[in-house]
């Protein structure tokens, strides 16, 4: 028996719809609709009162017209009147009209609110349901004001029916989303948490959604939900598929609820050991079930099962704490990469992307590189190929960069137009980030321009010029390569720009070769001149005047060109002005003056790659982080550090020679000479090595000029006690990378970091716990003089205002140059209310973070142990246990410390031994450690042997604090 009987339709409505569908043209349709609108209008306005049936019919007609894309500007009042009817049919259609058609700012809201209030008070569950739906659908601020206090009561009242509870939970969620300030936390919160134990799974599902959203902003209030969620999940996962009756979907017990519970758990860090054990069990069971044969061949069965599985995997990745589970997750995703279901391949690629950033599984992800490259080549679906590109980008590191970049370039030739620009940006970033050999970098970028010139944005070619200018070892090669590339009969305008700029600066480096003599270079460039747009021609004119300085022998040729009517009388003001000024300059200035004015460009100061900013902007339009990126980008534009000085001139400056020729104050004063180091990341090359105190506030020139020193002085005045307070927290981070570093009533500082060899990256999250804005929010990372020489830290600026309840993120790029003892200090200053806040905490960047574990056999271990027998190489510490002496926890700590835990090496099984290598930029230091617990005495003896006394000393100190 169908639930909707087909005879119930309204004849008038059916006739109208059929009329519309029979219309042969758009005009006829509009005519018919206008006729109907006029009819309905007159009926509504007419003297005769309409009965409920007619009202319903007309409202349905209006809904249909609205769906076709026509504006409905009347009928609202009639719909509101229907709300106060006692008949379900009329009330229901009234609510439907309102939820589809009424704007949240409508003036009718007050009338609607009245009707809702009556229905909520009616104690009729059907009417209450309709009213709650309406609130959830409109969700305006006025509604939140009227009902935010009322709904929590309905939600937790003992006598509320299940279906109403479900609706109330989601209704409250909607109001919290639109107006969080109007939903007060209170007694009801703890009772909401207990809904997780409700009998009715529909209620639990709705409550889980609500708690997940609330917990993101109020983690403390809802932290008891973790253990309840875990036990609920555990009951579902272990239940026989028939236990949950109707909530079993194609043999999978309550898949939606499982997914929601797993999402809720993602709001919290891994729970404490007792609960954690149970959670791990659940996750293992879910992973195990994936290997079982399917209970049904239907796609719904595998979909539901895999929905839970993917959610479990993302929780594992999110917690990032159980290496065993991470490896299993990675293997599972590896299986899916080759699955015949496209959906699963898509999701596997997507999840692996996040997995690639986990320190435990980065290597495991890399083993799938061939499969992913294959996906890029063979997938039919552009959505899937795009995920493959994302994953390749995420799994790229120095070991596979050349292969990945080559594959991406290959793919670019046939890639869909919609994603070309993004791939170009990614290739450019990878080529730069992992370039060991800069000739490779230059080749890659020129290839990019050749293959996809139209998609190479300005940022990309600005960047290649910045890099060539800042690295003198690649300049000759770059000049030679662009010269060769320009020989092609048809080359992209972007190539002409790069070529023009580079030859103008470094053409002299290849002029000795008769095949690229000055005149040949000039003729080659000039042959492209007339095909180019105005900005490019302007750039080429600047190249010509630079040639006048570089190659006096072709001065007259160039002067002839400048003097020609097409230049001197060019219709474009910018070109004309350049031609006139350059011609005059070349005529009247002496050789010395020319040489000074037209000197080589000074190196560019640099903090963040502008390409990276651009990519971030492209990836997430409309998000908050994105806005920050745009701001950053703008601010970097403002102080001119991210673009070649040339650009500003080409487009705007009325007197082009000044800035273009490097005489403007900005580039000269801001640019220190590039450091002599060679093979570190470019980002580091551009960091200002003179100031280890990186200025963090965005943007203005003031921030770059001087206050670095000032701020470090402020800290040295009164850092002592605040810094010490945080010591205990600091030690917690020695064996782990993520967690909360600092918390007081105003501010919470969270950390997430990852280290590989001698490099690391730390994400600092500043959370404003108050509802008031922080102003002038300035975090600064400070290194002492000693530390400065051994640790390179580089930070990106953060927005100086932090809204109430908001969180901002800051990235610190870390390079360990040599071994070090102290920790850098993070100083934070901001204004809260009227008061100035200043606090400092130690940033847990410790020497052991640069550990790489080394596995070795017992024999090897003791052989090396003996080699390091010089008394200066060994440091030993005997100390009392501060924590219960649990072997498993100890093992986890040693692994967390970074060394490998070597099993069956020490003849005494109670002892722990470990081995690893500390990577610094200058050296690698092998380290062996041995920890001997004495249970009776509750003591430990820790012995460290490394090739360097200071390292042994420091590691011993750090590790002793852990047990």
């Amino acid at each position, binding site marked *: 028996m*169908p*639930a*909707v*009987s*087909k*005879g*119930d*339709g309204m*004849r008038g409505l*059916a006739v109208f719809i059929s009329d519309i*569908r*029979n219309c042969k043209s758009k005009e006829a349709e509009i005519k018919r609709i206008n006729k109907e609108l006029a009819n309905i209008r007159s009926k509504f306005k007419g003297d005769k009162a309409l*009965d*409920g*049936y007619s009202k319903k019919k007309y409202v*349905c007609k209006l*809904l249909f017209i609205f*769906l076709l*894309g026509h504006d409905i500007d009347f009928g609202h009042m009639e719909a509101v009147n229907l709300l106060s009817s006692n*008949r*379900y*049919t009329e009330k229901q259609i009234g609510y*439907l009209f309102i939820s589809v058609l009424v704007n949240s700012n409508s003036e009718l809201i007050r009338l609607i609110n009245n009707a809702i209030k009556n229905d909520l008070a009616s104690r009729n569950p*059907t009417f209450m349901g309709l009213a*709650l739906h309406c609130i959830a659908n409109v969700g305006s601020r006025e509604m939140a004001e009227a009902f935010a206090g009322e709904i929590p009561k309905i939600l937790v009242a003992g006598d509320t029916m299940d279906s109403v509870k*479900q609706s109330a939970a*989601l*209704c409250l*969620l*909607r109001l919290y*989303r639109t107006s969080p300030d109007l939903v007060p936390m209170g007694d009801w919160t703890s009772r909401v948490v207990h809904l997780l134990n409700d009998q009715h*799974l*529909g209620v639990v*599902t*709705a409550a889980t959604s609500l708690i*997940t959203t609330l917990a993101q902003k109020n983690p403390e209030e809802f932290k008891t939900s973790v253990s309840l969620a875990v036990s609920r999940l555990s009951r579902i996962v272990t239940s026989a598929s028939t236990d949950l009756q*109707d*909530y079993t*979907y194609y043999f999978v017990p309550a*898949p939606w609820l499982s*997914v*929601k519970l797993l*999402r809720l758990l993602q709001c919290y860090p891994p729970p404490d050991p007792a609960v954690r054990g149970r959670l791990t069990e659940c996750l293992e069971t879910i992973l195990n079930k994936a290997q079982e044969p399917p209970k049904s061949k239907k796609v719904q069965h595998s*979909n*539901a099962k*895999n*929905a839970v599985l*993917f*959610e479990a995997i993302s929780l594992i990745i999110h917690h990032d704490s159980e290496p065993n589970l991470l490896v299993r997750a990675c293997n599972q995703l590896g299986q899916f990469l080759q699955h015949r279901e*496209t*959906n699963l391949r*898509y999701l596997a690629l997507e999840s692996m992307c996040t997995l690639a950033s986990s320190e435990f599984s980065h290597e495991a992800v890399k083993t799938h590189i061939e499969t992913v490259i294959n996906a890029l080549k063979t997938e*039919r679906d552009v*959505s*899937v190929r*795009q995920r493959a590109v994302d994953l390749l980008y995420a799994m790229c590191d120095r070991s596979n960069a050349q292969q990945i970049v080559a594959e991406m370039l290959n793919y670019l030739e046939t890639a869909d137009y919609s994603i070309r620009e993004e791939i170009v940006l990614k290739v450019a970033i990878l080529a730069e980030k992992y370039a060991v050999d800069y000739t490779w970098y230059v080749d890659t970028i020129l290839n990019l321009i050749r293959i996809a010139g139209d998609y190479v944005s300005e940022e990309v070619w600005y960047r290649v010029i910045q890099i060539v200018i800042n690295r003198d070892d690649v300049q000759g090669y770059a000049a030679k390569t662009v010269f060769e590339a320009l020989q092609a009969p048809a080359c992209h305008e972007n190539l002409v720009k790069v070529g023009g700029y580079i030859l103008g600066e470094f053409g002299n480096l290849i002029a000795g070769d008769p095949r690229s003599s000055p005149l040949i270079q000039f003729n080659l460039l000039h042959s492209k001149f007339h095909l180019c747009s105005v900005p490019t021609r302007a750039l080429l004119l600047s190249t010509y005047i630079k040639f006048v300085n570089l190659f006096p022998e072709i001065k007259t040729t160039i002067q002839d060109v400048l003097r020609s009517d097409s230049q001197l009388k060019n219709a474009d003001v910018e070109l004309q002005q350049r031609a006139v000024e350059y011609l005059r300059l070349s005529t009247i200035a002496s050789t010395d003056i020319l040489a000074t004015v037209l000197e080589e460009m000074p190196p560019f100061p640099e903090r963040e790659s502008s390409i990276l900013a651009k990519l971030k902007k492209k990836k*997430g*339009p*409309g*998000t908050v982080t994105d806005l920050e990126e745009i701001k950053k980008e703008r601010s970097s534009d403002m102080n001119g550090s991210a673009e070649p000085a040339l650009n500003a001139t080409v487009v705007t400056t009325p007197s082009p020679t000044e800035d273009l020729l490097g005489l403007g104050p900005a580039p000269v004063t801001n640019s220190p000479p590039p450091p002599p180091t060679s093979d570190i990341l470019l980002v580091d090359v551009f960091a200002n090595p003179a100031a280890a105190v990186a200025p963090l506030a965005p943007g203005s020139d003031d921030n770059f000029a001087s206050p670095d020193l000032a701020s470090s002085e402020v800290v040295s005045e009164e850092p002592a006690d605040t810094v010490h307070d945080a010591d205990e927290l600091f030690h917690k981070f020695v064996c782990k990378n993520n967690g909360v570093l600092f918390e007081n009533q105003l501010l919470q500082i969270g950390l997430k970091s990852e280290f590989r060899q001698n490099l690391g990256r730390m994400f600092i999250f500043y959370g404003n716990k108050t509802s008031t804005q922080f102003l002038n929010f300035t975090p600064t990372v400070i290194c002492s003089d000693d530390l400065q020489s051994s640790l390179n830290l580089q930070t990106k600026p953060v927005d100086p205002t932090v809204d109430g309840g908001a969180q901002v993120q800051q990235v610190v790029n870390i390079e360990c140059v040599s071994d070090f003892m102290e920790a850098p200090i993070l100083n934070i200053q901001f204004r809260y209310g009227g008061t100035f806040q200043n606090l400092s905490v130690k940033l847990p960047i410790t020497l052991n973070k640069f550990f790489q574990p080394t596995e070795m056999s017992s024999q090897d271990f003791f052989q090396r142990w003996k080699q390091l027998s010089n008394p200066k190489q060994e440091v030993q510490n005997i100390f009392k246990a501060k924590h219960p002496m649990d072997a498993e926890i100890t093992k986890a700590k040693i692994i967390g410390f970074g060394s490998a835990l070597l099993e069956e090496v020490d003849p005494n099984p109670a002892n722990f031994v470990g081995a690893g290598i500390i990577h610094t930029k200058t050296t690698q230091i092998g380290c062996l450690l041995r920890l001997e617990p004495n249970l009776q005495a509750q003591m430990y003896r820790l012995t460290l042997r490394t090739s360097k006394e200071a390292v042994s000393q420091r590691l011993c100190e750090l590790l002793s604090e852990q047990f």
Partner: protein
Amino acid sequence: MIKAILIFNNHGKPRLSKFYQRYSEDTQQQIIRETFHLVSKRDENVCNFLEGGLLIGGSDNKLIYRHYATLYFVFCVDSSESELGILDLIQVFVETLDKCFENVCELDLIFHVDKVHNILAEMVMGGMVLETNMNEIVTQIDAQNKLEKSEALSSHDSLSAMSRSWSYPYLSNPDTTGSLNLKRTHLFPVGKNKAKDAALSTPPQL
């Protein structure tokens, strides 16, 4: 969170649109067109997920869709939803429609927009999943119908309206639909397939 639920046919004619985030009427129509454009150009048998169009929020949002006979069912969701979960939710929605309308087809959605809205309201509320248990949903809809019937019987004018509707021209008497440009195509093929229940396993794609 689910941002929008759209149903349109193979030609892009909207059959249901439900937005859980406020957009102006114009934008709503543009989103429907943009979404149709994105979804309809995709081959069959590719994956069911793609990044959302610019109007609805770009790559922060995903479109998760299924194609049944003449209709596309598209859910636009943010990153907090499970893709496969939503895919199954679409299936639950269509199976529920099939139960409520008995061999549901595009025409049912056209002539009973209000019913479709009611069924959807039992499943999704304010952009969040309210109920996934099909029996529970159908029970609620049944209860609503009973209420409607009892109200209709108690009122004379509605009764006469109902009796008029038995001569409903198109669905009860297919021969008169000659002028309609749309034939009655079931979302789930009826007859043998239906009996074997095979049609449910993969959305039929005509």
